[in-house]
Structure formats: structure tokens, C-alpha cells
């Protein structure tokens, strides 16, 4: 099992999913994130899926669950970097991912978060692209 690192930058938690995660690692990430949102009082969670080649129903459900959970804990979740082929496939699979906010890339995701949750943009710009 792989443990996905969670970075904290200012008031925002950043997760960059690399490679192909097995289902147990996906569930572990979900739990780790919930804990970190509470422990840090983060106002935003950014999940970068630029490197993710497929999103199936299991990963899709994890993304929705994280969004719902963080909303409950007063944080906003934004999924960034979804590949076009992944988006096309998700629609055909029938996953609506309702309630999930997305942005094309990390920069746009941070900007979106800045608008809604007044995240510390100066800190975040250090992350770069």
C-alpha cells in the first residue's frame, strides 16, 4: 500500500496523487485527509489529479466523499488537473461527481479557493506549477 503525502501550505492542504493507487490506499487517503482537516483547521483542500490516468467509480466516490466531508468540517475541496480523456470517460461511466468543484490546473484551483475561502495567496504562489 502507498501512503499519499498531504502537504500543508498556509490554510490549505494539498494532495498530489501520483501513479495508480490500490483501493486500500484510496481509503487511507480519505481518512488521513479527514484527520488533517480537523487537526490543521484547513479552509481548503486541493487534490491534484494531473498524473492520474483513470478515475473509476471507486476513486470518483472518494473524491465526492472528501468534498462532502471537508464541507462538513468547514473546508472547501477543489479537484485540479483532470485529463480530458478522464473527463470524457467519467461522463460515459455515469459518474456525475455532483458537488465537486474542479479547476483546470493548480493555479486556477488556488485562485478559486482564494475567492471563496480567502486562502493566503502569497503563501500558495510559492507552490508554483
Amino acid at each position, binding site marked *: 500500500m502507498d501512503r499519499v503525502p498531504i502537504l500543508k501550505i498556509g490554510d490549505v492542504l494539498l494532495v498530489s496523487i501520483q501513479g*495508480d*493507487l*490500490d*483501493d*486500500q490506499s484510496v481509503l487511507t487517503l480519505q481518512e488521513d485527509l479527514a484527520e488533517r482537516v480537523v487537526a490543521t483547521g484547513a479552509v481548503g483542500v486541493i487534490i491534484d489529479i494531473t498524473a492520474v*490516468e*483513470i*478515475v*473509476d*467509480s*471507486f476513486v*470518483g*466516490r472518494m473524491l465526492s466523499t472528501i468534498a462532502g466531508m471537508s464541507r462538513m468540517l468547514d473546508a472547501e475541496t477543489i479537484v485540479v488537473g483532470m*485529463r*480530458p*480523456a*478522464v473527463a*470524457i*470517460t467519467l461522463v*460515459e*461511466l*455515469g*459518474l456525475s461527481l455532483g458537488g465537486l468543484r474542479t479547476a483546470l490546473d493548480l493555479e486556477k484551483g488556488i485562485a478559486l479557493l482564494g475567492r471563496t475561502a480567502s486562502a493566503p495567496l502569497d503563501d500558495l504562489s510559492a507552490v508554483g506549477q
Partner: protein
Amino acid sequence: MEQLSITSNDDVVIVRQKVRAHAIDLGLSLVDQTKVVTAASELARNTLVHAGGGQACIEVVQNGMRRGLRLVFSDNGPGISDLDLALTDGWSSGGGLGLGLSGSRRLVDEFTLDSDPGRGTVVTVTKWTR
């Protein structure tokens, strides 16, 4: 032809990786690669979760000028008593989204579901090159 056994979460990852490698070899477009790997992921997980494990078989098939990738997922699990219900969007016997079977049917060109309650399930899907 490649035969893989599915008995753990790691095996589901391996099925995805092998199917992707074959799809690339075959020259499927990026979107079609993504679709067939996603379908394989759903079906391999069903084999593991609903049947307690089984097999995946990956095979390149030919029909005239066209070549295709055929995937067969088979198990000796409990089977499915109502195939139409199982293929309904949103129907799940457990806590799933109920999109694995119905969604993967939309992602491939050919899809067959055979099941004998009490004996097992075979799902066969094919994606053709364009």
C-alpha cells in the same frame, strides 16, 4: 493472451496496468485506452468484491481489418440472479454506486454478461480499434 488472477487489491492494479499496456500496443486512441482501462478496473473490482476473486484474461482479437482488445473476467462466485437488475444504472446489492456493470458496458464496443446463480459469472468486453 494473458491470464491474470484477481485475489487482492494489488491484482486489480496489475489488471489495469496490463490492460493499458495492451491497449497502447494495439494503438487504441488515448480516450479509448482510458475507457477500456476504466471498464477493466470496474470489472476486476467486481470479481474481487462480489465473487471473492477470479481471473482476468486479456486477448488481442481480429475481425477483418480491425483489431480489438478482448477482456474476459470470470469467477466461481455466487453469480447474479437478475442480470437486468444488475445492469441497471445505480443498482447495487451492497453500498456501491451501481455503476460498475452498466457504466463499463457504455465504455466498450461489445459487452456480454453470463451468470449462473450459485456457479459464477463471466463478463466479456471488447474494444475495437477505429
